[in-house]
């Protein structure tokens, strides 16, 4: 059938549909490719690079790379796992993450990725950046110390809410998420029901007064590791 594309991931043949990315096709076939900036329903961003895979021997972001017939994808190799681990480490030292008293703890995708990769402490030195908190809005706050620059809120506000409340400003290490106002979130047209508020993988963009609602032990990643709902034991075709 010309409507399906066959590719190989870590030696296992899988089928996908034209237009799918490697990440999507893998997921449909029960193969989890770790990701952070990718989010179902949002256009791929390709920025975190956690989803890096080798495609025919060359590195590509699985979340942006379309599948092609006969592609050879390496996802679960020592080299790729080491690279992903390094990137997750980088995200930790780049910001100021104090998981122990963070509202998102247990439901945080960055934290969950670290657990999945067996990271207990980063191997890179902390950069301790000076970043700000915007608590101007009565119902919502931004803690930029925890932001991983994944751009999910930027895309969700623009494409799902039709608002453009968020956008990146600055470049390089100075890059940060700004709001569509002179300075403060309260001066934007954001609403507490906006979809943009449900996409942040970490504890950077949160609703006020709902933190710590779920007790330890019943949080999203307390017992199952991130990606486990996607992963299936390899089935023979």
């Amino acid at each position, binding site marked *: 059938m010309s409507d399906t594309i066959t590719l190989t991931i870590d030696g296992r043949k899988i089928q996908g549909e034209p237009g799918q990315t490697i990440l999507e096709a893998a997921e449909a076939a029960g193969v989890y490719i770790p990701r952070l900036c990718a989010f179902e329903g949002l256009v791929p961003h390709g920025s975190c690079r956690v989803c890096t895979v080798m495609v025919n021997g060359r590195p590509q972001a699985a979340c942006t790379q*379309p599948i092609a017939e006969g592609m050879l994808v390496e996802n679960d190799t020592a080299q790729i796992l*080491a690279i992903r681990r390094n990137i997750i480490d980088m995200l930790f030292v*780049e910001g100021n993450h104090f998981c122990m008293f963070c509202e998102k703890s247990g439901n945080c995708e960055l934290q969950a990725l670290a657990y999945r990769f067996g990271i207990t402490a980063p191997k*890179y030195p902390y950069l301790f950046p000076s970043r700000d908190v915007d608590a101007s809005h009565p119902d919502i706050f931004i803690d930029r110390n925890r932001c991983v620059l994944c751009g999910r809120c930027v895309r969700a506000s623009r494409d799902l809410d039709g608002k453009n409340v968020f*956008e990146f400003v600055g*470049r*390089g290490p100075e*890059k940060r998420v700004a709001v*569509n*106002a002179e300075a403060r979130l309260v001066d934007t047209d954001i609403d507490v029901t906006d979809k943009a508020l449900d996409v942040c993988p970490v504890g950077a963009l949160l609703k006020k007064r709902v933190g710590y609602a779920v007790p330890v032990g019943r949080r999203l990643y307390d017992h199952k590791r991130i990606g486990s709902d996607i992963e299936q034991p390899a089935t023979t075709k």
Partner: protein
Amino acid sequence: MSSTLESAVKEICRACGNDRMRMMDIVRAVQEKFGCVDSQAMSLIAKEVSVHRVEVESVVSFYAFLSSQPKGKVVIRLCDDIIDEMKGGRKVAEALKDKLGIDFGETTADGRISLEHTPCIGMCDQAPAALINDEVVTYLSADSARDIIDKLQSHMDPKKLVSRLGDGNNAHDLVRSMVHNSIRKEGPVIFGTMAPGDGLRKALAMSPQEVIRDVKTSRLRGRGGAGFPTGMKWEFTRGAPGDDRFVICNADEGEPGTFKDRVILTERSDLMFEGMTIAGYAIGADTGIIYLRAEYAYLRAFLEHALAERRKAGLLGKNILGKHGFDFDIRIQMGAGAYICGEETALISSCEGLRGDPKNRPPFPAQKGIYAKPTVVNNVETFCCVARILEKGPGWFAEMGSEGSTGTKLLSIAGDCSKPGVYEVPFGITLREMLEMCGAKDTLAVQMGGASGVMVGKAQFDQTICYDDLATGGSVMVFDQSRDVLAVASKFMDFFIEESCGYCTPCRVGNPLLKERLDRIRAGKGEPGDLDYLQDLGETVTIASRCGLGQTSARPVLSTLANFRAIYERLVKPAVDGLQPAFDIHAALADSTEITGRESVHFQR
């Protein structure tokens, strides 16, 4: 004041058709008129061109030549490239600071003069150099720097600082710059003579497909660094579906140590325009855009004039050279200070009025480039080669150079050599021959291809300059035995940290981490394990980064690790006390010692 801002912004936006795609022109114009694009201006622009305010801010905050805080009427941008530093740039910097009574990044109290650092401005052959607004001042010394400040404080007119004019078109009425071409070796391709129209006429006598065939036969590869076969790129673009097509000339020349495109723009712009026009014919485009780096704004009026002359001569415009139905024209898009905008998809973002973030690929520019239309992006020199290939035939071109790298290459050589400047050489010469040619003595190391290239030592001097051996987009920096190659590498890391767009994690975070560990080693606080740490970190940045910047930014570290490993090994030592050498226990305990009023029991001095 605010009503003047409001009416001026309105006028500027209207002059740009209130078109958000022309955001770069708009913000540049506002910056020029008001010394900044402040918060109020951003809101006004957003309203005029119907975008969100934060989108304007995202653009303004991206480019080094734009600012939200007011700058002086005159902005001095001293090049802080490694070559400038070697040629006495620090003394110039001190003199400027001292004379103005301000530090870099500051503006004088009267709001008249701002002082800044900027990466390579393409004047390494006449370093130290600086930009004063759009004017270039070269061969600076502490004395001449003080003199410049005296003069500026009296007349505030950077143009009046030009006392002697450079050679060739640098003395042209529309340039009037003190820049020198420093052409040291003229070769047959770029510096050979060709009358305007001679290449184009031959091209128009053929079919577009035949033109592409000739370019392919010549085996021309891109001169901007990556070396992609030009004919193949054109064929893809021609074959991509779409009604409009575009030709873009990459005149961003941001790679530290490169200044060969500056010389082409000054002396051979006709050849470049002709190559672009031929590309337009070959791929079926009717618009060409030159993306000119902000540092070369002093050439803009001259280039506009050259374009006007070509229009008059029937070499641009409608029915070019009488060829019915072939319409093509070229416009200039100014950049605003961002190395990343030399990367072709970032360049396209910038042309579309966006931050200079590279785009995700696929689609490639050949399929969906500017305005999502099929687009060819080539380097200045590549277009010049095309014009000569069409004029003299692909065989003539392919006979020069080496098998995989046909033709000649412009090198811009600077650093520790007696004859810095531009050399047109056939591909395939050895590094040793090149060093001889430029008068380099006691050479310790050569940085081939700029900051994103590789640092090579004596063991590599018999290698050849070509795509498959020692590749370079043109930049060659020579360092003699008195230099510290790790200091050079560290300087290049500063450059990448500053110039990363910040989009992807490995480049945004990895580069500062590489620099941290490299500097720790340089300070004598490294451990043997740090070498593996750097290698592993550097490889992650190289493999996982999203675009060519991050994919090459670890090279200063990785290439010195490979080629100058002995230097690292001399610097690192195992810790004697079992603690990390970089960790100063007494400094860490200083506060508690102070508070408790006694020393630690375990760690006493």
